[in-house]
C-alpha cells in the first residue's frame, strides 16, 4: 500500500532517495516512533523501512533504541543528536512555542500551546517547564542532554538579569526573574531576550537576511517590535530597549498607551487597535481571525492589515534612516498575510527613505515564518554555550548557571 510514495515516480535510486527523506521527515514530525509505526505512518513496507532505518543508522542520521509496544519488543527510531540539545521558547501574547534542536540547527521536536489573554507568569512558566520535560521525554532524552534554554518575551528584556526592563508592558511579569526561576527549576542555563531580537537573530543566521551584515527585523504581531543587527551582531542597546518601535510616538493626540505615553505605534497598529477598527462591522474578532479572513479575501480585514503595513512602514523608514540596514525583514503574525502587509509597508518605506542608488534597501518577508522567534531563542542558547564539544558529558552535572 504505497499511499504517499507514489507521488515521486522515476528511477530506482530517486525512489529510494524519496523514501529515505520520507522516513526522515516522518521521524522528525513525530519525534520518535517504532519501526512498525514508521511503516504505517509512511505507507512503506516493513522491510523497506527496516532497510532504510539501517542505512540511516549507519550514516548517523538516526538513533535506535529498544523499547516495548503492546508488550512486544520494538525498535524506537529517533533523529540522532549531535552533541547536545538546545531549547528555544517563545512566550507570545496568545501562544507559547517550543522548539528543540541540536548544534546543526536542526529542529527535532516542536510544540505550540495556546495561552490565555494576559496569561499569568507563574502558570505560564510552569507550563513551559513541563512542556520542555515532556518533549524531551518524547524524544527519549532528559534535561542532561540540554546545553541551555533560550526564552523570548514580548517585552524589552535586560539580558544581564533576565528580567523585563520596562514597567507595564507585560503586567505581572515585570518583577520576575524569568531567567533565574527557569534555570533553578530546570537546572540548566537559561538566556532571556526580547522576541523581536530573537527573530532578528534567527533571520540573520538561518533566514532571509543570512548573508547581510546590517539588517532590521520587524515583528508585526499583537504589538510591533524590531530587532537590529549591526555588523552581524544583535544590537540590544544599554537596557535592552533598542528597536522597541511599538512605543515610538506616531500621533501626539492619540490614545494613551499601556506604557503610559501617548499615541505610540502600538495604539494604532496593535491587535487591540486592529480589532477595534473592525468591531462595528464584524463584531468580536481575534487577531488570528483578522489574518485568516484577510488571506481569504475579506476586504475589510485586508484593508486593516494594509493600512497597518503603511503605518509600520512609515516608522520603519525613520529607523532605517538612523541605522541604514541592507535589508528589512518582516515577520510576526501579520506577515502571514504576505504582500497584503508587505506591499504598503515597502511603499511607505521607499517613499520616505533617502534614495540610495548604490545599494537600495530591500524589504522582504521573513523566511522562517512564525517559528523565527522560537528558533532565535534556540540559537541564542546554542551561541551562548561555549562548552568544548568533548567536555559536554563531564559538564552535564554542573549546577545551572545564569550567565
Amino acid at each position, binding site marked *: 500500500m504505497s499511499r504517499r510514495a507514489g507521488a515521486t515516480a522515476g528511477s530506482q535510486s530517486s525512489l529510494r532517495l524519496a523514501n529515505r527523506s520520507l522516513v526522515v521527515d516522518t521521524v522528525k514530525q513525530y519525534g520518535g516512533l517504532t519501526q512498525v509505526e514508521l511503516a504505517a505512518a509512511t505507507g512503506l513496507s516493513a522491510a523497506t523501512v527496516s532497510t532504510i532505518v539501517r542505512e540511516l543508522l549507519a550514516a548517523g542520521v538516526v538513533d535506535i533504541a529498544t523499547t516495548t509496544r503492546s508488550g512486544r519488543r520494538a525498535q524506537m527510531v529517533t533523529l540522532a543528536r549531535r552533541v547536545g540539545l538546545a531549547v528555544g521558547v517563545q512566550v507570545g501574547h*496568545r501562544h507559547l512555542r517550543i522548539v528543540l534542536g541540536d548544534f546543526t540547527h536542526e529542529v527535532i521536536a516542536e510544540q505550540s*500551546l495556546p495561552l490565555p489573554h494576559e496569561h499569568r507568569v507563574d502558570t505560564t512558566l510552569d507550563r513551559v517547564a513541563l512542556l520542555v520535560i515532556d518533549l524531551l521525554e518524547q524524544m527519549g532524552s532528559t534535561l542532561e542532554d540540554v546545553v541551555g534554554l533560550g526564552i523570548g518575551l514580548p517585552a524589552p528584556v535586560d539580558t544581564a538579569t533576565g528580567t523585563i526592563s520596562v514597567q507595564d508592558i507585560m503586567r505581572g511579569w515585570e518583577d520576575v526573574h524569568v531567567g533565574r526561576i527557569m534555570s533553578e527549576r530546570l537546572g540548566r542555563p537559561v538566556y532571556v531576550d526580547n522576541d523581536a531580537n530573537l527573530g532578528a537573530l534567527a533571520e540573520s543566521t538561518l533566514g532571509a537576511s543570512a548573508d547581510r551584515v546590517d539588517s532590521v527585523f520587524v515583528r508585526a504581531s499583537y504589538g510591533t517590535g524590531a530587532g537590529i543587527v549591526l555588523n552581524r551582531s544583535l544590537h540590544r542597546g544599554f537596557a535592552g530597549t533598542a528597536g522597541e518601535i511599538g512605543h515610538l510616538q506616531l500621533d501626539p493626540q492619540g490614545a494613551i498607551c499601556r506604557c503610559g505615553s501617548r499615541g505610540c505605534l502600538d495604539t494604532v497598529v496593535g491587535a487591540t487597535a486592529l480589532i477595534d477598527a473592525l468591531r462595528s462591522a464584524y463584531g468580536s474578532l481575534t487577531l488570528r481571525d483578522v489574518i485568516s479572513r484577510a488571506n481569504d479575501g475579506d476586504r475589510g480585514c485586508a484593508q486593516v492589515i494594509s493600512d497597518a503595513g503603511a503605518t509600520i512602514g512609515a516608522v520603519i523608514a525613520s529607523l532605517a534612516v538612523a541605522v541604514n540596514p541592507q535589508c528589512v525583514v518582516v515577520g510576526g503574525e501579520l506577515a502571514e498575510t504576505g504582500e497584503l502587509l508587505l506591499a504598503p509597508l515597502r511603499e511607505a518605506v521607499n517613499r520616505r527613505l533617502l534614495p540610495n542608488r548604490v545599494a537600495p534597501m530591500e524589504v522582504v518577508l521573513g523566511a522562517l515564518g512564525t517559528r523565527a522567534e522560537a528558533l532565535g531563542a534556540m540559537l541564542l542558547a546554542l551561541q551562548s554555550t561555549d562548552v568544548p564539544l568533548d567536555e559536554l558529558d563531564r559538564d552535564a552535572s554542573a549546577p545551572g548557571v545564569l550567565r
Partner: protein
Amino acid sequence: MSDEARVPLLAMRGITMRFGAVEALVDVDLEVHAHEVVALVGDNGAGKSTLAKMISGVLQPDAGIIEIDGEPVTVPTPQAAAALGVATVFQDLALCENLDVTSNLFLGRELRSRWVRDDGQMEEVARRILRSLSSRIPSVRSPLSTLSKGQRQSVAIARTLIGSPRIVVLDEPTAALSVVQTAEVLTHIEQLRNLGLAVVLISHNMTDVRAVADRIEVLRHGRNNGSLDVATSSYEEVIAAITGAPTEPRPAQHAPLRSSTTAWPA
C-alpha cells in the same frame, strides 16, 4: 456585543430541568455562533454536563426551547442530535480499546462500497481528518490500547468530525492530560474553530478555557451567572462569577448577586 444581528447556530432559551427537589437547571440561556468557542464553566453540580447532555440528545429539558439556525428543534435522542449536526465528546470518551483508530472513528457509521466495509476509503478519511487537526497519531491502524491518553482524546475529537457536524460539544477534554497532550487538544480546539464550527467547551481549567474560548458562560447552582468576553475579562472576574464572590461593578459585565433568574446581557 455587536453580533446580535447574526442568528446563533445554537440557542437554548429558558432551559429548566429538575430531578425531584434538585434544580439542575433553572431558566438557563445559552447561545453559540458558528466559528465560536463558548466555554461552559462552573462548580461541580452547577449544571454544565446536564446542559451538554441536552444539546447532545441524552436528556430532555422539562421546559425551554432549543433552536438550531433559529428553528426550534427537539433533540429526543443522540441520533437526532447527530442528524442536526451536533457531535459530542463525553468525559469517558466512549472509545473501544481493542479496535484501531479508523474503526473507532467510524464505529457504527462504517463506510461501505456495495455490501462490504470499505476499509481503504475509511483509512483515507481517517488520515485526512487527523491531519486537518494537526494530530500526531502515527498510524490509523494503531489499536486504541497502544495510544496515550492525549492521543485518545485526539481520536475522540476526530471522531466528532466524521459526518461533518456544525456543533461540537467537548466535556472536560483536558482533564488529567499532561501539558504536551493539553497543548495538542487545545490546538485541536483552535482548528475546530478555524473550520467554522461552533464549539461548546466544558472545563474546570481556567487557563485552558481562557486560552481557546471566545466567551465564557458561567453557571452557578443551575443558573446563568455571567457571560464574559475572554478578550476583556480578567481571571478574577471569571472566578468571582463561578464562586459568587462580589466583584467591583463593571458596566455590562456585572449583575447583582443572588440573582436567581438573571439572564446576562449577551
